[in-house]
């Protein structure tokens, strides 16, 4: 049987499109699980981060809201209560024994009580908390300005990131503590605070008592709760999974501005 060239071409085209479709749909799954392709996709994050920083100033301010905009209920996400004896003991006596350690690449390492943190220059702000999942909630936060604290401990020249070590273990066996990291631009941003009050009362355990980080230009997972130690480092490659945070080690973007 002789097929017309047109029919041949149609057969070829329909097969080609069918094959492309099938490969594309099955292929996405394979690519997601490959070693190399997520690295290619990472170029998207790099571009987003570079462009977001290029079109905003270092001190660009997150939107602030009115008292009336506050959410009736501020959702607790992630850890609601750190499951360790040490944390429970500390919470039982109203965090009287709490110490915030600041160390790493600093001239004057510090260990601050909650009263010391409350005595630092503070800022109060009503901001929107944007979760990576898509929800958001608005609350009023009061906390010590991280920039002021870092100035008081005097950073060494090669300090590039602030790493926040937290009290909540993420693994069932009580290990794998939550951690996060931000760069110095965010650390010295005026709205970056170590919050100890939420909606005019002491920060509840469910929201990170006694101290949680607020880094308002980024998504919720950067806002580490139960902060115990701030370590100044030249690089976070040597910490845990090496990607700068608990969720980052599981594949989430370090730049959480989008």
């Amino acid at each position: 049987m002789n097929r017309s060239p047109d029919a041949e071409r149609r057969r070829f085209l329909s097969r080609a499109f069918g094959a492309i479709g099938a490969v594309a749909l099955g292929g996405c799954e394979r690519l997601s699980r490959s070693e190399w392709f997520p690295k290619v996709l990472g170029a998207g994050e790099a571009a987003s981060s570079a462009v977001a920083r290029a079109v905003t100033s270092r001190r660009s301010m997150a939107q602030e809201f009115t008292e009336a905009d506050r959410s009736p209920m501020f959702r607790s996400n992630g850890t609601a209560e750190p499951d360790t004896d040490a944390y429970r003991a500390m919470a039982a006596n109203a965090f009287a024994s709490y110490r915030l350690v600041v160390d790493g690449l600093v001239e004057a390492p510090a260990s601050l009580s909650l009263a010391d943190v409350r005595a630092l220059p503070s800022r109060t702000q009503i901001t929107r908390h944007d979760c990576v999942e898509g929800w958001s909630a608005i609350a009023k936060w009061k906390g010590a300005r991280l920039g002021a604290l870092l100035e008081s401990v005097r950073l060494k020249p090669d300090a590039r990131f602030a790493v926040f070590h937290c009290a909540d273990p993420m693994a069932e066996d009580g290990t794998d503590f939550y951690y996060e990291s931000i760069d110095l631009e965010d650390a010295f941003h005026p709205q970056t605070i170590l919050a100890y009050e939420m909606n005019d009362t002491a920060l509840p355990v469910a929201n990170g008592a006694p101290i949680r980080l607020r880094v308002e230009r980024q998504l919720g997972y950067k806002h580490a709760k139960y902060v115990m130690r701030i370590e100044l480092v030249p690089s976070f490659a040597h910490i845990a999974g090496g990607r700068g945070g608990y969720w980052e080690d599981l594949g989430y973007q370090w730049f959480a501005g989008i």
Partner: protein
Amino acid sequence: MPPVDAGGPPSRSYLYYRHTLPVRIMHWTNVVALTILLMSGLQIFNAHPALYWAGKSSYSGVPPVVEMGAREGGESGYVGYTRIFGREFNTTGVLGLSNSADGRLSARGFPWWMTIPDDPWLSMARSWHFFFAWVLLINGLLYVLYSIGSRHLSRDLAPDRRDWRSIGRSIRDHLRFRHPSGDEAKRYNVLQKLSYLLVIFVLLPLIILMGLAMSPWMDTVWPGWVDLFGGRQAARTIHFIAAWLLVAFVAIHVFEVIVSGLWNHLRSMVTGRYRIVEERHEPLA
């Protein structure tokens, strides 16, 4: 453009060079990018399968306008539901509750076959989404620059006076599935021009802008600009609606391609060449 295969014995049809190479490349780049953006976007939506309109956050005391989920009930023990403006619909099997790729019943917004990746995996969906968002944006900017520079925009897309006058007839023609032939088939009809312009200059810029409105960092470019669209959650809802309007556009676009000559259109978007059948038929010797 002159006919490509002029010459040879007189024929009633000839191939006309309809789509330039840059347009063809950018068209298929869009097909890939928009498909991946839709499917990875639905996976991201599944992380919090609800949409809000009023209020400056999703916890403002106002219930969502759309919500998907699963609850106990029904014969199998669970029911998937979709609530729209407070009215609940049973959407078991598709929305709220569906079988995952390996056949296990799972609570999720959109089913696995509509998402990238298949299984709930928010971080990977975000990686796909934000990579192909750049592909779409760069492709779109190149397209606009090319269309202005090559006069594709002014010559082929901008409706002229004749187009505006023929709008009624064009609507009737579309409803009767009557399609132009001869020289008329070389140009876009007025409804086609208007829908392309709407997608290029309204829908796509809007969906990109609403994506940026969800970025806490981009919100700081001009604090409060997101409120012009009703706040971050309303922006998320507009982003979602715009995505489905694009799906509707693609559905109509593909439908029109099929009814007005699938192979001819496919060929012209692959090789550039579109077969024109002349209206005046010479009697065959």
